[in-house]
């Protein structure tokens, strides 16, 4: 029993240490952003790697999710003669929930795992130590641009996901199932509030961007520099990010839309 309590205490302390380390890590990284003329090329490079290269998966997923939502919504709403409300249902589902959450989960799988593996490999091949020895802070040079690229990319990818999703839903509802397009758009416009729905969705995606990027770069920087360590850290990035996004989504939804 004592041994069990001791091991529980040890793992608790270990978790607190990791949290503390990751906290100071992210603060030091963000405080040490390099001068603009040096930071911009690095940021551009990362925006391309993290954001632009994530576009195909975001666009294709957004299109299919919009199409499926529209199809499912239509088959339910048509029983009540309310199929004209499919646009409203589609927009609210995407903008409030599915857009931010699914984009963040896809981002964690595509860009998060890639960030962790890249930083981990740089650590394993002593490139990070070599930067330190050249007198360049790796937190400033390697971590900060990747963190910022994540913060900027994910909200933009979420907006693109939403737009493509609505487009996909329109194709199914209007072009295929015959919903009147005037009702589709007007119901969507009437039901969707910019501040309460669109802005809250963007705030969610900013929170997810911070969380996923933080987890991804910290896991890469803090891993054991072996092939096994890189594999384990990459898995942790995807698992921790996914759980954090889902948990955070519940909290944010409760705060933003909860009526209590």
């Amino acid at each position, binding site marked *: 029993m004592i041994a069990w309590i001791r091991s529980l205490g040890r793992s608790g302390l270990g978790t607190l240490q990791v949290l503390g380390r990751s906290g100071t890590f992210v603060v030091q990284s963000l405080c040490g952003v390099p001068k603009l003329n040096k930071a911009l090329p690095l940021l551009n490079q990362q925006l391309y790697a993290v954001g632009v290269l994530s576009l195909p998966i975001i666009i294709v997923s957004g299109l299919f999710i919009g199409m499926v939502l529209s199809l499912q919504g239509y088959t339910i709403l048509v029983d009540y003669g309310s199929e004209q409300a499919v646009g409203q249902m589609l927009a609210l589902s995407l903008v409030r929930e599915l857009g931010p959450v699914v984009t963040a989960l896809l981002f964690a799988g595509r860009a998060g795992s890639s960030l962790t593996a890249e930083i981990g490999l740089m650590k394993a*091949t*002593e*490139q990070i130590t*070599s930067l330190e*020895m*050249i*007198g360049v*802070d790796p937190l400033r040079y390697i971590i900060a641009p990747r963190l910022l690229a994540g913060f900027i990319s994910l909200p933009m990818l979420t907006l693109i996901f939403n737009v493509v999703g609505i487009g996909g839903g329109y194709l199914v509802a209007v072009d295929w199932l015959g919903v009147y397009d005037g009702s589709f758009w007007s119901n969507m416009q009437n039901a969707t509030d910019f501040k309460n729905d669109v802005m809250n969705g963007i705030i969610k995606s900013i929170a997810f961007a911070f969380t996923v990027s933080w987890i991804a770069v910290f896991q890469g920087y803090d891993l054991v520099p072996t092939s096994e360590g890189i594999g384990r850290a990459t898995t942790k990035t995807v698992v921790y990010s996914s759980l954090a996004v889902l948990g955070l989504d519940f909290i944010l939804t409760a705060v933003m839309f909860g009526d209590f």
Partner: protein
Amino acid sequence: MVREFWTAIAVGRAGLGGSGKSMTVEDNNIVTVRGLSFSRGDRVIFDNADFDIPRGKITSIMGPSGTGKTTLLRLITGQIKADKGTILVNGEEISKLNRKDLYRLRRKMGMLFQSGALFTDRTVYENVAFPLREHTDLPESMIRDLVLMKLHAVGLRGARDLMPSELSGGMTRRAALARTIVLDPEMVMYDEPFTGQDPIAMGVLVELIKLLNTALGLTSVVVSHDIHEAASISDKIYLISEGKVMGEGSPAQLREDSSPLVRQFMQGLPDGPVPFHYPAQDYRDDMLGGDA
């Protein structure tokens, strides 16, 4: 050709007064380590060890695998912190430096990693130019001249446009060496520079370390297992084992040393104070007590 190149640089430096400063007694050691203790978990790496790295000389740190040779370099460069003891580099105590001062001091040190640690997304030229771009505001034409000079010195001027993945092991280390010396550091540390090299590449590296030390007035610290190569260029050797300095002196002094461990290491004997067998139970008991 390489020798002539570096001799010219040495003459130029002396003319500019670069390496001709008068030395006081305190200046003699660029690194002074006193009472160093360092452990990893329960394993003691250093136990109250002392080291002096004399300025302008080549000092080799040798010893059996896993004795903490690379750890010593990491301690000297402040990558890890000692549990006890003081490490003075150029008169500054490493453990008392903040992050900014530590990075400032590191610009005066260079380190050649075992893997080379070149940035894999940049060409050889860009790798060597990187420290100049980060720490100076030199115009591009001057950066080009400096980079090509350093690459020429290591024999890789023609490989400037290659990516690190296109280089052989020896070329990778030479390119990394060019990057290490591009800011003209006062001290260069070499972590296992000869490991895995063919005889030609090894000969080139031995020659380069010696020439750079003389021509640039550097201090060199070489961590190595290769007794013959290290001894051929070293002014001083430290032999470490079990957390302590087991022998120290010139290569000739260590060859004459009567201590069993020093003798085993210098002569490359398979058994001795460092046993051939990993600790295990009695062979006979082990064989007879098996499950079969």
